[in-house]
């Protein structure tokens, strides 16, 4: 549904987006991650046809966004960053305008507006002016606008920003539900959100894609992913270390604590982690260890994120 090839966008001499490519089909939910200023919003603005790219192309369905902007935009629902709304309108008036501008009329328009209001839990405020709304309601009003015309493609820039935990949960559930038959791209800073919602995640840094895969695949890339932690009562760490170092497929054994013995066994390959854990279990039975804990550490997306993106303050390398 979405095909982005080799997208570039320069503002003056600064490259905001520098060769981004990805594709997305219906039924997929793509999480867009990256530090502030990495080019997430710029990419989304280009995908939705708001900004023209400096180079590269974006296709929505069969339409090129630059050559057939109106047809392409018809297929997209877009929630811009900070959820801008016409603050001088009522919620219903605003949604009716968006529907009309998208060519809905009469009962189809009324039905679509009612559906969007129900989906985004806006019933209590439909007749209120948007500038009197709380941030959460305003955000959901803008989200309602994006899903109003039941578009096959949704582009959501930080859809859960500024919502309270309950609202966040609702919006995530909504995205998951809609993701069954739509192609959805959304950006976020919240990594747990990616694990909870996405079928695929892209990490973007300084305008380039630095990681692209399922959340599970990305977690494997975390430093320390797949380490096997062993804790044995009444034993000494150094003694255990000598035994565990004889295991095949281990990259290293680290004693975390001497007594009670806590060790981390790092596998050569994180896919081997569970086999190694099994082997340690066998050894512990044979050696009559009082095994108190034996687990495979999951990589954390946080760690992946930190290890492959640079903080804002780091010097930029010139391309």
């Amino acid at each position, binding site marked *: 549904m979405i095909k982005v090839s080799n997208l570039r966008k320069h503002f003056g001499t600064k490259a905001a987006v520098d060769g981004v490519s990805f594709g997305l089909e219906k039924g997929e939910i793509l999480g867009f991650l990256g530090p502030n200023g990495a080019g997430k919003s710029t990419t989304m603005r280009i995908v939705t046809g708001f*900004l023209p790219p*400096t180079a590269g192309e974006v296709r929505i369905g069969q339409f090129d966004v630059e050559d057939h902007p*109106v047809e392409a935009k018809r297929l997209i629902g877009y929630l811009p960053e900070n959820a*801008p709304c016409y603050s001088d*309108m009522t919620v219903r008036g605003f949604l009716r305008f968006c529907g009309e501008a*998208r*060519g809905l009329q009469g009962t189809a328009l009324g039905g679509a507006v009612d559906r969007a209001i129900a989906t985004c839990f806006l019933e209590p405020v439909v007749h209120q002016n948007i500038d009197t709304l709380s941030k959460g309601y305003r955000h959901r009003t803008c989200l309602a606008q994006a899903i109003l015309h039941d578009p096959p493609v949704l582009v959501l820039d930080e859809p859960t920003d500024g919502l309270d935990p309950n609202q966040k949960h609702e919006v995530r559930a909504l995205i998951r539900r809609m993701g069954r038959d739509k192609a959805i791209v959304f950006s976020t800073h919240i990594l747990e959100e990616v694990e909870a919602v996405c079928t695929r995640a892209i990490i973007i840094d300084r305008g380039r894609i630095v990681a692209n895969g399922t959340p599970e695949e990305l977690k494997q890339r975390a430093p320390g992913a797949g380490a096997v932690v062993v804790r044995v009562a009444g034993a000494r760490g150094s003694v255990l270390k000598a035994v565990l170092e004889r295991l095949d497929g281990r990259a290293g054994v680290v004693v975390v604590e001497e007594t009670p013995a806590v060790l981390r066994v790092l596998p050569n390959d994180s896919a081997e982690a569970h086999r190694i854990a099994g082997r340690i279990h066998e050894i512990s039975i044979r050696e009559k260890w009082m095994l108190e804990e034996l687990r495979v550490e999951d990589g954390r997306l946080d760690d992946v994120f930190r290890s492959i993106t640079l903080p804002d303050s780091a010097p930029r390398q010139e391309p």
Partner: protein
Amino acid sequence: MKGYLGSICSVAKRELAGTVSSPVAFVFVVIFLLLAAFFTFMIGGFFERGQASLLSFFGWHPWLYLFLVPAVGMRMWAEERRSGTIELLLTLPLTTWQAIFGKFAAYLVIIAAALLLTFPVWITVNFLGSPDNGVILAGYLGSLLLGASYLAVSSFTSSLTRNQVVSLILSVVICFFLILCGWPPVLNLLDRVLSPAVVEFVAAFSVMTHFESIQRGVLDIRDLAFFASLILFFLFATHAVLRARRAG
């Protein structure tokens, strides 16, 4: 084609609703009517002239519009940009031209409404004498064209900035220039230093020359073409600015 106009209409409707619900449109219409009446009757010498014409009424319009139209039009794009809604507007399935025409039409409706509400002046002059109503109709048309031209200028200056005050000042200056370059005192001054051909060239750019010739009831195609091209030029400039702003 119906879809094309439909999108323009929905943009215009929204803009109109937004302007009417805020005090902007109301203030514009009321102030316009009050000032128009004041200048026509108190300063223009409507009664003293002893003529059944609305020259003393229309003659003030270029000056009334000079401040009022930029004040109404200044929010046209500046507000969209400031609040970020421009991102919503321009990602709707409509072209930039449709958005520009829609907004332009909405504010033109407000100016037209203000003009229509001056009908008591027309009734008065018809009650007191027997004016040439054809000339008066031409006067209204000329006034609307003039308002539309200032509006197109405001649309352009509003697209340049996210600050409404900057837009206001810029458009007042441009509109003031468009008046001045055809105003007799200025032309007399230029006449002394420049050759007549140059003076005529400068005067041709003035809204005053064309406005006044329409006021005399002469609907010359050249005057109409002047206003049409002035409006289109500034709307085109708006389009160019909106495009360039996004191109980065």
